[in-house]
Structure formats: C-alpha cells, structure tokens
C-alpha cells in the first residue's frame, strides 16, 4: 500500500458513530450517514486506481479549485464506494470538470440540477451496476455510491452546500445520487458511449446536468412514431413549463418499448430525427401555460426546438423488462451545460 503522505487535516473520534456525528454536525454530508474516511481506507482507494494523494484529478474551471486524488478518495469512502469503483468516480469527476459542462453554474443555479451519469462498457458488470429493474433509483450499491460521491465532492470541495454556493430553489431527489448503467446486453442499439465516439469495448461515463426524470408510459401501440410522440409531448411540456431552451435531452427507454421500436426497424438515428422534428413549440404556446407575459416580448410565431440538432438527444437503454415505460431527463438550462463523455 502506498505510504505517500496525506495532506488533509485529521480528527480523532471514538468510533464510527462519533465520526458520523462529527461529519453531520460539520455539514460535510448530504444528511445520510457516511463511512468514516480513515487514512488506511483512503490509501487503499487511491491504490485501486493508481493515483497519488496529491495528484490533481480535476480543476473546476470557474473558481479554479484544484481537486486532488486524496479528496476524491475521501468522498468515495464516505459515500460507501468500494475501491474498485474509483476508476468510474475519477472519470466522472474529470467529465464534470470539462469547461462545457459548466459545473459551477449548474451547481449554483436556482434551477437546481443534478449531474446525471450514464456508465457504459465492461466496468458496469465488473462492479455490479444495475441497468434493469428500478434502473433510475435504488438497486445497486455501485450506482448509488458513485453518484453520491459526486454530490459529496460538490458539497465539500466546491462549497456547494445548500444556501451557500448551491442556491437551488427546490433541487430534486437526483441530487442525492443520479447514476445509471446502460443495459447493453439487452439493447438492440449501440450503447450511448459508442454514439459519442468511444471505441467499442471501452468503458466510459457520460454526464449531463439534469432536471429530474419525467416518466412516460405508452404500451398501446406497435408504431414507433406513436411511442416517440409520447416522449416528445413530455419534452414539449418541459419546454413550456420549465425551460424553452434547446440542449441535451436524455431519453431512457425501457425494454418493452425498445422491443417495439426495434421491431419496426428503427435505430437510434430514426429516433433522434423523429424527436428532433416532434419536440418543438411555438412561442405563443407559452400563453396556454400561464406565461403570456413573457410570450409577448418577442415574435410569438417563432418556433423553438428542444434539440439544437438530432445529435443532442442522448438515448439510454435501461429499465426492467416489463412495462411500457420510459423517461425524459431534461437539461438544466438549454446548452449552458453540455453532456460530456470520458473514457474510464
């Protein structure tokens, strides 16, 4: 085990219960209990990914905060990760530090987004990630603790505690953790990472600053257009009731609907193009949702698309085998934050 020195301040406590009490009282958690980050555990987590304590893993571009391997490992231990999750955690943190992700803005905004992480490749099975039943919620320690690690880092190394840097008006439950694996083995389409340029067989994580998932249901048709009309309607509702600006939307499509869409011979290109055409609103539509005051400020005949181009749509295959369900995961604020993919 590496014996390179750690630089964090230390505290002596009686036992794990007292450690948790210290972290809770100090505001260093999300409110859920933590695993105490001891020096031995932090060394073990760093060794698992071959990173030295002082190595800078990422720099938050706005406030130029330089985040070391040591702080990442501390957060991963606290969140309940196992050491082998560290390579996903590190890739995820590097992804959110990309300038186009806009980590500062989406962490601070009153809009209250959460990073939505999608993991692809062999690492999913190696660390036991869940991509099927209850895919967007509890079901796997790896999904839960990897997503939670990012939240603890935002709180502790970026200062993103609620009411401090985090000015979210409401936030949403995904701010505790929001991490899913894709069901590649049971999908008719190439994985998301492949769409985004990652070589086949490699593991990768894609992250989007996202609002909460909106579940949709349509199990009464064999026509892929009708299924996608349901998704487009949810996207249009989001454009009118939340934010009209175009950006990366994710759609999570569960197996039953995937099978129907694939049986009609539709691949991801057709899905993206159909949603691009269908998910658009007219500025005057704002009047139908109580936003007449803002509608009149510009040309009310102007048409807004949800996506800047069909490629803005992130298609994720995940969910349990039964039920005609899917979800729309909207962007925080148009293209102010863009999805980022990093190889693991």
């Amino acid at each position, binding site marked *: 085990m590496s014996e390179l020195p*750690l630089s*964090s*301040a*230390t*505290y*002596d*406590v*009686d*036992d*794990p219960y007292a*450690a948790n009490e*210290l*972290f809770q009282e100090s505001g*260093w958690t999300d409110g859920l209990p933590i695993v*105490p*980050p*001891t*020096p031995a555990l*932090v060394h073990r987590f760093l060794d698992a990914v071959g990173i030295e304590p002082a190595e800078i893993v990422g720099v938050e571009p*706005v406030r130029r*905060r*330089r*985040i070391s391997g*040591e*702080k990442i490992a*501390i*957060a991963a231990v*606290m969140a309940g990760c196992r050491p082998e999750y560290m390579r996903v955690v590190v890739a995820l943190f590097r992804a959110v530090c990309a300038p186009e992700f*806009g980590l*500062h*803005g*989406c962490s*601070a*905004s*009153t809009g209250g987004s959460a990073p939505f992480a999608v993991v692809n490749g062999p690492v999913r099975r190696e660390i036991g990630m869940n991509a099927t039943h209850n895919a967007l919620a509890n079901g796997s320690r790896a999904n839960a603790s990897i997503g939670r690690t990012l939240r*603890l880092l935002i709180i*502790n*190394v*970026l200062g993103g505690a609620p009411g401090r840097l985090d000015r979210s008006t409401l936030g949403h439950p995904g701010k505790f953790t929001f991490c899913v694996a894709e069901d590649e083995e049971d999908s008719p389409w190439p994985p998301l990472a492949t769409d985004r340029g990652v070589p086949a067989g490699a593991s990768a994580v894609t992250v989007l600053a996202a609002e909460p998932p909106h579940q949709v249901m349509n199990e009464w048709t064999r026509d892929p257009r009708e299924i996608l009309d349901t998704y487009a309607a949810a996207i249009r509702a989001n454009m009118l009731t939340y934010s009209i600006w175009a950006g990366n939307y994710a759609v999570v499509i569960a197996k039953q609907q995937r099978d129907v869409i694939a049986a009609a011979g539709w691949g991801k290109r057709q899905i993206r193009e159909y949603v691009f055409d269908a998910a658009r609103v007219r500025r005057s539509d704002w009047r139908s949702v109580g936003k007449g005051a803002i509608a009149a400020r510009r040309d009310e005949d102007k048409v807004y698309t949800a996506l800047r181009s069909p490629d803005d749509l992130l298609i994720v295959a995940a969910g349990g085998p039964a039920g005609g369900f899917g979800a729309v995961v909207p962007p925080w*604020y148009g293209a*102010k*934050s863009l999805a980022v993919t990093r190889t693991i």
Partner: protein
Amino acid sequence: MRVLDPRLEAEGQDMTMAPPLETLEGATLGLLDNAKIGTARFYDHVESILRSRYGVREFIRRRKPDSSRPAPAETLGELSAADALVSAVGD
C-alpha cells in the same frame, strides 16, 4: 480512530474589498451586467440615481456573455478604467 477532513482548503490569498471611494462626485463607475433578464433595466435605474443624486460623471457598462461563467478578460480590462465597479448578482 482518525478520520480525514473532506473539505478543500482555500488556495492563495483571501480576497478583500477595495477601500471605498472618498466621494462619488465626478467618478467613473463600472456596471457589470451578469446577463440575467432584468439586469439591464435594473442598472438603468441605478445609473440614473447615481448620476442625479451622487454626481457620478461617467459609466462603463458591460454585459457578460453568460451568467454562469466569469467575465472575459477583455471585459474586465475595459472595466478596469473605472474608479469603482458594481457587480450585480441575481435575476
């Protein structure tokens, strides 16, 4: 047992407020607009008060391209000609 502090220590010097101007009479003020929807109108009002009640002579007004990212160096360079700067945060 011994546990590690999860927080990141601040790097570099702490920032402090610049000393206030002796008077606003005849001063040049920078107004940095954070690019939110109501900021320009708000600053119109601030500017008229500062001109009429406090005798501010000149304003340098610049708008950030994006409310979620820092002002570009070029914008800060232009604002540095001011005696003092107002940076409004919020909608």
